[in-house]
């Protein structure tokens, strides 16, 4: 075989991915996209027009209220010994609900373990989700039913699954977008970097949605990165980095919407940094009083995403006592449903331990299946005798 005589050609530019842009436009704007003030005042932004109906605006609010109620219920359940641990998303409802709401139903979400709000947008059974934290089983929903992948605990690792999934959608010629969530701490891990590298090169229809909630357990953002903002990292992978006010559900929706449209048009991935605040502890096992002050929490409370959206709806005459009652009732009903599904729920069937490890388990652990069955039988006999 002879050596090629010409210079290697540039990587193939696929026609569907061709986008002539000045890379400097990939840098984030000086200020995060912000559409609604804390008092509900709305600012028009021609780049992010409000394309939601009144019903949809109310729906965003409803989803945030239900999320907070279920989140609170989960914390209560943990305090009562019903959950082993729980990672609250309080304060991040707008970041999750707005972004998830911007996706189409065929699009996929690859969450971390804190995405209750995104899960509720996808109508994943809330009690089922909490079984992970109860330890009933490691998951309780079929990802293909909701296009919502399993919650992923190893930090940032799910970014690669979303990227691979998006590569598949592109190979398959389907207009499906994958979005993955991770946090400010996650941007320090290797896998999101590899994911963005792959997504940039392959122009995969994937969105990296970072909820910058200021803390990785106790470690503040300043100890996580020296980058000007997290969104500045994106240009290094050849993708646009966008920032938005993560406590402004209309901003998280609008910025994600643009990223979805970009991906669906074949222009590839987007990195979004939503500036938010984790109002609760990292998990119920954490004691945040060791690393943050009451003053800081009080200040954060003023940016509460739910109060802000309520103020917005009120100013637009979209909020009244009737709506308040209806949403509160629904939130309470969901919380009650979750409590009923979790409280004193029996643990799983021990024999199921062996059921899903392999589709073809022959030769792996037949003797151990028999051993556990015998141990269960003998425990049952002992109980019978007692």
């Amino acid at each position, binding site marked *: 075989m002879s050596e090629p005589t010409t210079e290697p050609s540039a990587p193939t530019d696929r026609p569907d991915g061709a986008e002539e842009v000045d890379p400097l436009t990939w840098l984030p704007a000086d200020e995060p996209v912000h559409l609604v003030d804390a008092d509900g005042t709305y600012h028009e932004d021609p780049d992010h027009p409000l394309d939601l109906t009144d019903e949809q605006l109310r729906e965003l609010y409803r989803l945030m209220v239900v999320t907070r109620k279920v989140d609170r219920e989960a914390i209560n359940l943990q305090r009562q010994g019903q959950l082993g641990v729980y990672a609250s998303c309080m304060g991040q409802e707008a970041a999750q609900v707005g972004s998830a709401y911007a996706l189409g139903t065929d699009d996929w979400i690859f969450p971390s373990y804190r995405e209750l709000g995104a899960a509720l947008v996808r109508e994943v059974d809330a009690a089922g989700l909490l079984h992970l934290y109860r330890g009933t*089983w490691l998951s309780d929903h079929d990802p293909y039913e909701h296009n919502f992948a*399993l919650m992923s605990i190893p930090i940032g690792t799910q970014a690669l699954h979303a990227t691979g999934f998006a590569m598949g959608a592109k190979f398959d010629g389907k207009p499906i977008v994958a979005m993955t969530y991770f946090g400010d701490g996650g941007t320090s891990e290797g896998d999101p970097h590899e994911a963005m590298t792959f997504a940039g090169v392959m122009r995969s229809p994937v969105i990296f949605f970072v909820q910058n909630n200021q803390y990785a357990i106790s470690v503040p953002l300043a100890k996580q990165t020296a980058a000007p903002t997290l969104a500045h990292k994106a240009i290094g992978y050849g993708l646009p980095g966008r920032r938005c006010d993560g406590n402004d559900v209309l901003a998280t929706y609008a910025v994600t919407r643009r990223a979805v449209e970009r991906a669906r048009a074949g222009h590839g991935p987007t990195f979004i940094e939503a500036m938010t605040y984790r109002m609760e502890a990292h998990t119920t096992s954490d004691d945040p009083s060791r690393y943050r002050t009451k003053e800081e929490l009080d200040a954060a409370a003023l940016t509460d995403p739910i109060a802000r959206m309520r103020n917005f709806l009120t100013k637009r005459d979209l909020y009244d006592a009737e709506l308040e009652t209806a949403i509160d009732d629904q939130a309470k009903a969901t919380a009650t449903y979750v409590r009923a599904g979790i409280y004193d729920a029996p643990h799983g069937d021990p024999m199921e331990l062996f059921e899903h490890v392999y589709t*073809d388990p022959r030769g792996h652990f037949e003797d151990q299946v028999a051993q556990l069955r015998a141990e269960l039988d003998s425990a049952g006999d002992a109980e019978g005798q007692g």
Partner: protein
Amino acid sequence: MAVTMAQAINQALKDAMGADDRVLMFGEDVGRLGGVFRVTDGLQEMFGEERCFDTPLAESGIIGTAIGLAMYGYRPIAEMQFDGFTYPAFEQIVSHLAKMPNRSRGTVKLPVTVRIPFGGGIGAVEHHSESPEAYWAHTAGLKVFTPGTPEDGYSMMREAIESDDPVIFLEPKRRYWMKSDQQLPVTTQPAREAVVRREGTDVSVFCYGPMVRTAMEAADAAADEGWSLEIVDLRSLAPLDTASIVASVKRTGRAIVVHEAARNLGLGAEIAARIQEGAFYHLEAPVLRATGFDTPYPPAKLEEYWLPDVDRILDAVERSLAY
């Protein structure tokens, strides 16, 4: 016409990709170059850049995206260029590839084949000669196959790709050039079945991958000494064919496990445990191991002192027979 192990695996990849357009092949340098060992030679030409493609140089990325592609419905074959470079992908393999089907209660299937050229004996620079099989075999949720012949290179690769379970496919790189006159395609026994490569009466020798040929050579040399070795090629390290292992020991009463990997907590330890559980009263001698040493893999000029060879196997045979 003779076919090498590398050609047999290459043919298996071609035939699998031809049979099912959900099968994808990707990794570092597998496209235009055809892989550093040429195992993917011609695939990109035959199937295009969306079926066989080069990825950025990031092993965790290769396995993590393979998982996403499998979730989408593809049947990815991911190449790790060398054994010593699988470690960046360790988390994706152990925490996700192996566990996700179980975590999802079977709703997610991950038919991913991870191809890894493994083992030493080719005079390579460090990190290119490792035998990490125990990590994978120890990890529930993975199947671990390693062919010892070109025929198995073809047939077991087809089986791995067709498996709905993730398979770590360890290719014995020093045997890539090993030849066979077998016509392809060929279907050998299912991978979960160990195969007796040579029947014998005195000592059972359990081996796999690159050590199959070494063990066969040892059996020839042993015959000159009047010792009859039974050579058992394990083929699958997870699951292990315990029944065949125990049956062989019951025939011979003596057992030696051979692998390149270091001895401490290697496959030999598990096999020895299974033998003493399953054939205790048939044993005439302790189960012995002829393996690499419990040191990092040595520099190339010293690997001949580190790797188990015919002499180390015969020494173990002699010690076993002395009981």
